[in-house]
């Protein structure tokens, strides 16, 4: 009897969330899948036809989508290592700091709570031809750099800014992980006169492993979803050098009204990210298992 009332209570709590998720998540997901096989045009839904896989073949032939795809991959390749290692580094430093610890935590976390649009506008000023960064460079005798206005520098400039903006969040996660490590492990290592590096390598890193995997995957997915920064700062330019997949989906769907095509892009994108996440999980899990095995053998 108790079980039954518990399950009713559970359903009652879960119910509202389920209803809202169905309306705002599951139904749109299913609709996106259906639309991706049609030529649904937002201005004239009556003329929608089933077009099979035509949208998908259009996408793969589209030079712009390919450009957007590779740009996104470039963003991921810059952001993921920088942000993951940066967050870990900051967490280690702050963990060691004894004065003003809270100040540093807050200072590095503040960009995370700021709106991306605000941060982007701020960095536009920093990167501007007569902005603070170029002024500093000119003091060292370095020529003015175009940054976000140059096709070669725009993508790395935006990626760097994104790392700066996002790193605080992962830093807090790592910090939590660091503080949860049993101090006895370090004490034992100290008794064995272990060096700082071997303490880091053999205690800190293995203990943080599950968090590293989590951070790695979430940062990757986040970087793949890049849109606000290029939209605000460069409009995808110069010469499409910062045009990303999600930006392309947005432009196709809302500016050009091609919902069918945009849905197909979204499906391709989702499948790609899911596959990548699975690969990441397998790779990192494999190492974890090996680590466990190694531990077992050592024992």
């Amino acid at each position, binding site marked *: 009897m108790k079980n039954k009332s518990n399950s*009713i209570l559970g359903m009652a709590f879960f119910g509202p969330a389920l209803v809202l998720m169905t309306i705002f998540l599951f139904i749109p997901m299913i609709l996106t899948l259906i639309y991706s096989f049609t030529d649904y045009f937002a201005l004239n839904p009556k003329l929608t036809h089933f077009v099979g896989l035509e949208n998908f073949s259009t996408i793969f032939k589209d030079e712009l989508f390919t450009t957007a795809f590779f740009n996104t991959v470039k963003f991921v390749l810059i952001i993921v290592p920088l942000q993951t290692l940066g967050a870990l580094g900051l967490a280690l430093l702050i963990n060691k700091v004894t004065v003003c610890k809270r100040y540093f935590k807050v200072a590095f976390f503040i960009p995370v709570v700021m709106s991306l649009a605000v941060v982007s506008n701020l960095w536009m000023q920093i990167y501007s031809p007569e902005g603070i960064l170029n002024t500093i460079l000119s003091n060292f005798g370095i020529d003015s750099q175009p940054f976000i206005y140059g096709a070669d520098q725009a993508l790395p400039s935006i990626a760097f800014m994104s790392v700066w903006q996002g790193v605080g969040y992962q830093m807090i996660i790592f910090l939590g992980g660091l503080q949860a490590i049993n101090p006895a492990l370090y004490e034992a290592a100290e008794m064995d006169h272990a060096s700082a590096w071997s303490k880091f390598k053999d205690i800190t890193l293995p203990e943080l492993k599950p968090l590293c995997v989590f951070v790695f995957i979430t940062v990757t997915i986040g970087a793949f979803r890049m849109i606000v920064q290029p939209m605000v700062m*460069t409009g995808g330019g110069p010469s499409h050098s910062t045009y990303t997949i999600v930006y392309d989906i947005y432009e196709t769907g809302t500016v*050009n009204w091609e919902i069918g095509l945009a849905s197909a892009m979204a499906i391709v994108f989702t499948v790609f990210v899911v596959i990548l996440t699975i690969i990441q999980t397998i790779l990192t899990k494999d190492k974890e298992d090996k680590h466990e095995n190694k531990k077992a053998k050592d024992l």
Partner: protein
Amino acid sequence: MKKLPLFMTALSVLASTVSFTGCSKTVKPGDVPGYDEGEQYLSMWVHTIEDTPEGEAYKKSVDSFNEKFNGTYFADIEFIPRNDSGGGYSDKINASVMSGDLPDVITVDGPNVSAYAANGIIQPLAELSDEEKGVYLDSIIEQGTVDEKLYALGAMESSVGLYYNKSILAEAGIEVPDKDNPWTFSEFLDILEKIKPIMDSKNGYPLDMTFPVGEASIYYYAPFIWSNGCDLISDDGLTADGYFNSDKNAEVFKYFRGLVEKKYMSATPVEKLFESGRAAFKFDGAWEVNTIYQSYSDIDLGVAPYIVSDNWDGGRYTPTGSWAYAATSKTENIDGATELVKWMSGVESGILLYENTKSMPSTYAAYEQITTFEEDENYKALYEQLRDYGRPRPKTPVYPQVSTSFQQVLEDVALSGRNAEDEMDKSVERINAKLKRYTR
């Protein structure tokens, strides 16, 4: 405690009903203050929020419409916010096209009139007499006409001026021509060359010019294409090949490249170059006049006629276009909707909007009544340019793609130095892909 599950279940049921009944409402007399028995109800959406000078002007215009047509029509205005890239408002229209919840009258951005008409979102207005049409600037009628039917009337008009710094031009000894004899492309190059040493000494550029992403680029610079005797798309709006990628257009894109190569303009945008007195010329919207007057009063501002190609035939070529009112295909009361469109785009509404936002009116009479357009030489120059040479942007259902493509080619050719012909051909392919929907 037992009541909690019940409460939560009720809440979830409520959540679902609220979500499903959010739209579709019928308004009965008395539901809205001012809507009385015997009046025909007209719903209208506008693209801004109420608490802006623009929104307030619309509200006042609607109130005066309701006063004037008391007993016949009642217009109910709804304000829908729009973000910078145009989303929000247009998303709501798109969603309502599907759900069938469009109001009787909507605002449409000028260049979108064609696409909305081609897809049956808006319908032709009730017949206007020649006298009624004659109230509006030619560019307004032209912008609102698709396939010889009038669909939309502009709430306001707009123009782009070639602004110049009077003291710099005086220093260089350059005279500005009158509106009917603008500088040609080659004359303008000579002037820029002459001014360059002066601007170099001020750590500036002869020209403050950028090719921003979004609608601005085609709006500012399409006149270069038009005055060179070509267009970006055919008159029926359905062929890009041979237009967008014509040799004449290639000349224009290369001309822009020349401006960058010869360092007449900065390849990277420099903030407030013109406003800080470090550029002699700038192309910008009519709002720039007010900005300079209000915030940079030490700049001695002049408006020169927009430059033309050496092959200019004297035809219309300067930028125009802004938000317009149109009746949706959903309205069953086209006469009432047309009356509302006429009122909202009429003389009084135009003057009100000018007073609140300084945007240029869409009717001749409004210009006659606003003394600024007679007394202030800069506003006068902009008005005369608009009146005599204004030309709406390309009318095609695939306008968004044409606009994006124009900006991309401009950026790729002028800033990145890519081959103009290749980039134009690529754009034609992209435009053609979007045109398929209308040509098959």
